[in-house]
């Protein structure tokens, strides 16, 4: 800008400070967030309170150092306070991270710079995690002092510390990602409920299971290393999914976040399927794990707003018909999201089938209960997606509504089971079999009815419970819900074609 130049000429240039150059190497967003975050009262209070409490506890322990268990007690208390600070308080600071920017209209100002949505979200997350890391370094002196109390498994305790830190990073990613959602119920209440559960878990672990945790973290048991690795990969995937959700919710329409997110989900699912087959994982665990990977991807894909612009289509169109076909699955927006969900489900089912064959187990035969659980869970993901499409009014942000519908379905199933318990007649629940979570109740009902039918004194029930009607119900409901969504999606493909034509015209007319 030439505007301020005359004034600038009269001003001596600012004196460069050596440390200033360092900040140029990190993200502007991180610089901003750290400036704000380190001055925030919450952080200062948590930091000082943690120091004060640990100092008091350690002094008290030194006074009673004759006790043999003093070292373990000190460890327990250090981990308890540290866990509460970094796994509860720090992540909850992320609740307003993106919402405050959206509410203050500052998100628009940021996206007009060179900061993309991902850099904004990542900066927010890294800032809170960095402050948690600062808390981690702040307790290091206490851990060193604790070493002199003796009976310390250094490797296990450091491992546990790292796990707590990673749990903090994951929960922070979830709160930061959800903070872009307008609904206070989802953005605020959900993390608070999660925090309550995690807090209860931390107290229980520090009271009763601290020894078990240390043993696990020593990685001496068979498979504990693999379990840890699998947990880390899963946490990384969920953390990334949460941040990706936040990024896509604040991104300008010309930024495409969906394609990479969907491709990565496909890669994770395919990679897990291959590893599970090669390593011959437990058959019953594969389905739920795959569903766990697919659930957030499906929920996001079927609720994405359809705001397709020509710049997004252009990279796909370079690959001709193949690119257009790929676009049907990977373009941003719910219509392609529904096709993508179908692909993901097919891939998951294929992975389970392949695994059964490779394992040489019962071949194509399935355990009915496993199938019912999988279909019920899948239906719980699909029905809210269909209900959103059936809504008479168009709602711009449907992710909150999706979660609300899913919550209502689960709540309905719980309510029906309570009613059935009260009226001592649960056969009416078949009328609600179309509600996927109710299928879990019905599975239990079939099981109980079968055993109730066996005469007292008989050696054992003949045959086994007949789950086939419920399996068929599950298959039918899932198919209907998916096909219903697909119909809505296909109706909107016309507008996608129009945008593709527009993008092709621009490409042709470009010099």
């Amino acid at each position, binding site marked *: *800008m030439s505007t301020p130049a005359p004034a600038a000429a009269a001003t001596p240039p600012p004196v460069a400070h050596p440390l200033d150059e360092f900040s140029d190497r990190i993200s502007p967003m991180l610089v*901003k967030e750290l400036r704000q975050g380190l001055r925030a009262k919450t952080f200062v209070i948590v930091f000082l309170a943690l120091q004060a409490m640990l100092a008091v506890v350690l002094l008290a322990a030194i006074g009673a150092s004759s006790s043999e268990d003093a070292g373990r007690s000190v460890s327990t208390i250090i981990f308890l306070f540290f866990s509460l600070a970094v796994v509860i308080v720090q992540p909850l600071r992320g609740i307003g991270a993106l919402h405050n920017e959206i509410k203050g*209209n500052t998100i628009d100002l940021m996206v*007009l710079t060179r900061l993309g949505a991902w850099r904004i979200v990542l900066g927010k997350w890294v800032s809170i995690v960095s402050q948690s890391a600062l808390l981690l370094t702040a307790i290091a002196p206490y851990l060193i002092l604790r070493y002199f109390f003796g009976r310390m498994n250094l490797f296990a305790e450091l491992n546990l510390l790292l796990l707590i830190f990673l749990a903090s990073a994951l929960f922070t990613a979830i709160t930061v990602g959800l903070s872009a959602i307008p609904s206070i119920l989802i953005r605020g209440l959900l993390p608070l409920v999660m925090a309550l559960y995690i807090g209860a878990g931390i107290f229980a672990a520090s009271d009763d299971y601290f020894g078990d945790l240390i043993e696990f973290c020593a990685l001496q048991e068979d498979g504990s290393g693999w379990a840890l690795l699998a947990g880390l990969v899963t946490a990384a995937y969920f953390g990334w999914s949460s941040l990706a959700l936040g990024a896509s919710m604040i991104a300008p329409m010309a930024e495409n976040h969906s394609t990479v997110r969907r491709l990565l989900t496909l890669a994770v699912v395919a990679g897990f399927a291959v590893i599970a087959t090669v390593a011959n994982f437990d058959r019953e665990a594969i389905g739920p794990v795959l569903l766990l990977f697919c659930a957030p991807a499906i929920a996001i894909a079927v609720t994405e707003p359809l705001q397709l612009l020509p710049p997004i289509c252009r990279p796909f169109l370079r690959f001709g018909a193949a690119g257009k076909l790929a676009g049907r699955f990977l373009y941003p927006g719910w219509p392609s999201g529904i096709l993508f969900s179908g692909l993901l489900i097919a891939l998951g089912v294929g992975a389970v089938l392949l695994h059964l064959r490779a394992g040489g187990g019962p071949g194509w035969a399935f355990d009915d209960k496993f199938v019912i659980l999988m279909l019920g869970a899948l239906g719980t993901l699909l029905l809210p997606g269909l209900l959103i499409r059936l809504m008479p009014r168009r709602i711009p942000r449907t992710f909150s509504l999706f979660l609300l519908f899913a919550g209502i379905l689960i709540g309905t199933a719980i309510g029906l089971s309570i009613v059935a318990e009260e009226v001592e007649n649960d056969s009416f629940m078949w009328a609600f079999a179309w509600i996927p979570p109710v299928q879990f109740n019905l599975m239990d009902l079939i099981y109980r009815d079968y055993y109730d039918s066996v005469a007292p004194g008989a050696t054992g029930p003949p045959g086994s419970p007949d789950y086939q009607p419920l399996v068929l119900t599950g298959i039918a409901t899932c198919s209907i819900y998916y096909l219903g969504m697909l119909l809505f999606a296909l109706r909107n493909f016309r507008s*996608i074609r129009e945008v593709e034509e527009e993008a092709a015209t621009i490409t042709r007319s470009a010099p």
Partner: protein
Amino acid sequence: MSTAPAIKVNNLYRYFGQLKAVNGISFEIPHGSVCGFVGANGAGKTTTMRILASLDYPTMGVAEICGINVVHHPEEVRRLIGWMPDHFGNYEHMTVVEYLDFYARAFGFSGKERKNRVQEVMEFTDLVPLADRFSNKLSKGMTQRLCLGRSLLHDPQVLIMDEPAAGLDPKARVELKHLIRVLAQEGKTIFISSHILSELGEMCDSLLFVNGGRIVHHGDAETLRQGTDALGGMLYDVQVTGDPQAVSDWCVINPHVEFLESRKTGGRIRIESTDPDRAAEVLARMIKDGLKVVEFHKEQRNLEDAFIDMLGRIDRGEGALPSAAPKPVLPAFTPPESN
């Protein structure tokens, strides 16, 4: 600089469900000019400006900045524009200099260049004395200067300012007006919306009046003042001692004189003739009828009058004034409805 106009909007539509926020508007703003965007609340000003700033997208039509389509090339457009929204929140625990430093980093400045740039902008917007004050503790006027400073950091060619003077005290308004004048002299294209029409009239080379999502006039302030004056005649300010209501009562019973607006000690009237003798006759009659007239002087039609008359013409179905807007062409882009 390209030969294309700084801002070009052609047959632009933006629907939100059933609401037609922008309903087929077309206009062009040449480089280096200041254009005021005027309209009632909900007329479609902010929506149009957000589309131009690449923050929203049109349902149909074309919007270009310096010949670059805002939908097709938003990244390029963002380098060319500075955006001042009508309201925005400030950050907690962040000083003025840190605020500008953050945005300078975000625009890609680094090292000494960044510091110089922040310093230049702070001096231009007179923020140097406030450098260490927390940005959320600033007054509205200071906040607007900070926002203007932020929007100038990357030296944009086009400034889009949505209601920058809203809520400002008179001193802050004068300061802001001065800054805009300086920017205009520097050759920047400024597209500014405001409710304060008199100020826009002083600052702007042209005015765009929008109503119900449509452009109803595009031209300079003088054309507008004269062009909307369908009734003709002259306006006079009449001040009396005693009951000011007496002026309006007198106008009711006297033909060829219309009472327009109450004022503290009298009112504003229209005499249906431009002849000064006729005005003298009216004054004489007022005095004869017992009105204690202490002041009687001719007034210019202001932009508020023009705007109200313009809306009146549209309400009466007489149509708006012919404007300088280009003729619409076929829409070049039709994105799908979002859901």
